[in-house]
């Protein structure tokens, strides 16, 4: 990947829930795990020494099973939760050192959030909900209405402006949530299992809407999910949490091809590898160059297999987006990758 700016930086973050987190923090730093901490000291380990650099204008997925600390982690970014130790830097500024006013401005102008349970205001109309962030910012009514309308149209809710959230289906409610978050023009979008409450078809739709919007908006999106398919579809970077600790971080290829441990391997075993693995992840460097046929490294195995099979020596060259050769892949490598 190319050189990029870091938008959000999480540094050695710890969160312990309980009566006296500071007291048990040294124990955790010395390596005490979540079960033992709960057993012996009756404290819950929420986040354990997480450090993560989140690049600008990309979708960072954070994945993990239920209870692994995903919600806790994302809520530190806008400081809905105070950490026990550690730092969160947004554009280089420490969120934990902000005054109440600074923090409020951060939440009003720089970040917005989409929630698993929508978090809409049930007593306000759809359009009023979408305007909510703008009202809070103090944008005047006609301007807020105009901007809200734009996003209502973008998420495909035209005609429902004057309905109450309770009159809409879950998928539609979450579109309201998305429109509300987009309406403030915040650079950072926090999405906590935003699509998890939706059924698979609607969920796929929502993912498409998000990808489509991201193509032109280029926001920094932190997207939480417990669903690997969703993570692979959306995530340019994926971080995996277990028991509050970050156990692997990388792009989809690295997660699928080089799982850090059995926990992750287990996660990835049910996916359709042929549709996820791309050639660049498999390429072995060839110092002597290669003069057979070449294919784009972004091609998934599913499409690449026939090409490799037809090629002389059953080997193809792999190029990056600029057309430069990065290595070769032969058929046996490709087949092994499918069954690893």
């Amino acid at each position, binding site marked *: 990947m190319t050189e990029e700016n870091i938008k959000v930086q999480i540094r050695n973050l710890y969160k312990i829930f309980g009566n006296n987190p500071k007291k048990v923090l040294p124990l955790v730093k010395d390596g005490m795990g979540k079960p033992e901490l709960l057993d012996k000291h009756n404290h819950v380990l929420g986040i354990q020494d997480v450090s993560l650099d989140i690049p600008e204008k990309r979708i960072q997925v954070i994945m993990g099973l239920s209870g692994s600390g995903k919600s806790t982690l994302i809520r530190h970014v806008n400081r809905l939760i105070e950490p026990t130790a550690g730092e969160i830097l947004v554009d280089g500024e420490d969120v934990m050192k902000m005054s109440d006013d600074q923090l409020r401005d951060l939440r009003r102008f720089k970040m917005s959030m989409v929630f698993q349970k*929508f978090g809409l205001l049930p007593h306000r109309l759809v359009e009023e909900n979408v305007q909510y962030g703008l009202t809070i910012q103090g944008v005047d009514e006609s301007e807020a209405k105009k901007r809200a309308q734009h996003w209502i149209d973008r998420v495909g809710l035209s005609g429902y402006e004057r309905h*109450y959230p309770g009159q809409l289906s879950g998928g539609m409610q979450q579109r309201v949530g998305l429109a509300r978050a987009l309406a403030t023009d915040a650079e950072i979008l926090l999405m906590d299992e935003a699509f998890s409450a939706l059924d698979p078809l609607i969920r796929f739709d929502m993912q498409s809407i998000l990808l489509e919007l991201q193509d032109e908006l280029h926001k920094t999106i932190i997207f939480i999910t417990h669903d690997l398919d969703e993570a692979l579809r959306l995530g340019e970077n994926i971080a995996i949490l277990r028991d509050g600790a970050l156990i692997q971080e990388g792009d989809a290829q690295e997660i699928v091809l080089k799982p850090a441990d059995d926990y992750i391997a287990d996660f990835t075993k049910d996916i359709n590898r042929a549709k996820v693995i791309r050639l660049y992840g498999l390429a072995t460097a060839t110092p002597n160059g290669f003069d057979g046929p070449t294919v784009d490294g972004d091609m998934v195995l599913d499409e690449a297999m026939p090409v490799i099979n037809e090629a002389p020596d059953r080997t193809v060259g792999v190029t990056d987006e600029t057309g430069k050769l990065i290595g070769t892949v032969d058929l046996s490598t490709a087949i092994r990758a499918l069954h690893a």
Partner: protein
Amino acid sequence: MEFLTEFPSLGRADLSAMRRWIDGNFREFTRATGEALEAFFNPLLKFLVWFEDLLQATPWPIILLVIGGLAWLGARDWKITIGSVVAFVLIGVFGMWEDTMSTLAIISVATILCIAIGIPIGILMSRSDRMQSIITPILDVMQTIPSFVYLIPVVMLLGIGKVPGLIAVCIYAIPPIVRLTNLGIRLVDADVMEAADAFGASPRQKLFGVQVPLALPNIFAGVNQTIMMALSMVVIASMIGVQGLGVPVLRAISNQYLALGLMNGLAIVALAIIFDRVSQTYGKRLQAYRTGRGND
């Protein structure tokens, strides 16, 4: 042996000295503050008198019209509206119009007072668990202590009349609105509050934009109960000089006038039913959004 059969109470002399000491001090306090208190409550008295005079002076057809109009605005229901008007006509026919107007005046003023004081206290209570743990027992006492007991200091301080009556009614009627405001705010969905936080809402924006509106159905249930409790105090309040339907009831009790007591009693019941139906249907309409009815 005598120690066990007879409770070792304070001596008679000690007790009476103690009582005299309390009474004496309170009387002194009364003398010192009575006038200031009266001056303090004077605007309230003026308002109550003005409102009662207004009701008495207004021609009855206009009152009937207003009653019908308010019932319609509140309930949007023909049956309730017509029922209310008919009840008032009957009250008039049976010669209880004036007393009813007096009662209406004191109940309205008491309710306004309870709302004006009770909702802020309820909001305060919802802000911290400490506040809640301080205010709850006070409300418990206010609701359970026999009204006659707090009538004594009220009358000692302010004498007999409309204001002490109003205060007695309010002491009895205010707890439900405080409790339900507190409860309503505490019951607001944590997810919605979190969303408000995440968008950077200030405490003020959260209170008036989210908490109070979402607590409104509960707050309204509190108003409804407050009105009911105020009505149930009508007879007791009449013992300390409040005009209205309570006065004939009291007279009926001491003279064993069955018909008089029954008629005025029923008039109070009729008022209660009207207030209750109208405010309850209004409260239900407030939550129409929950069931997804009533847009546009």
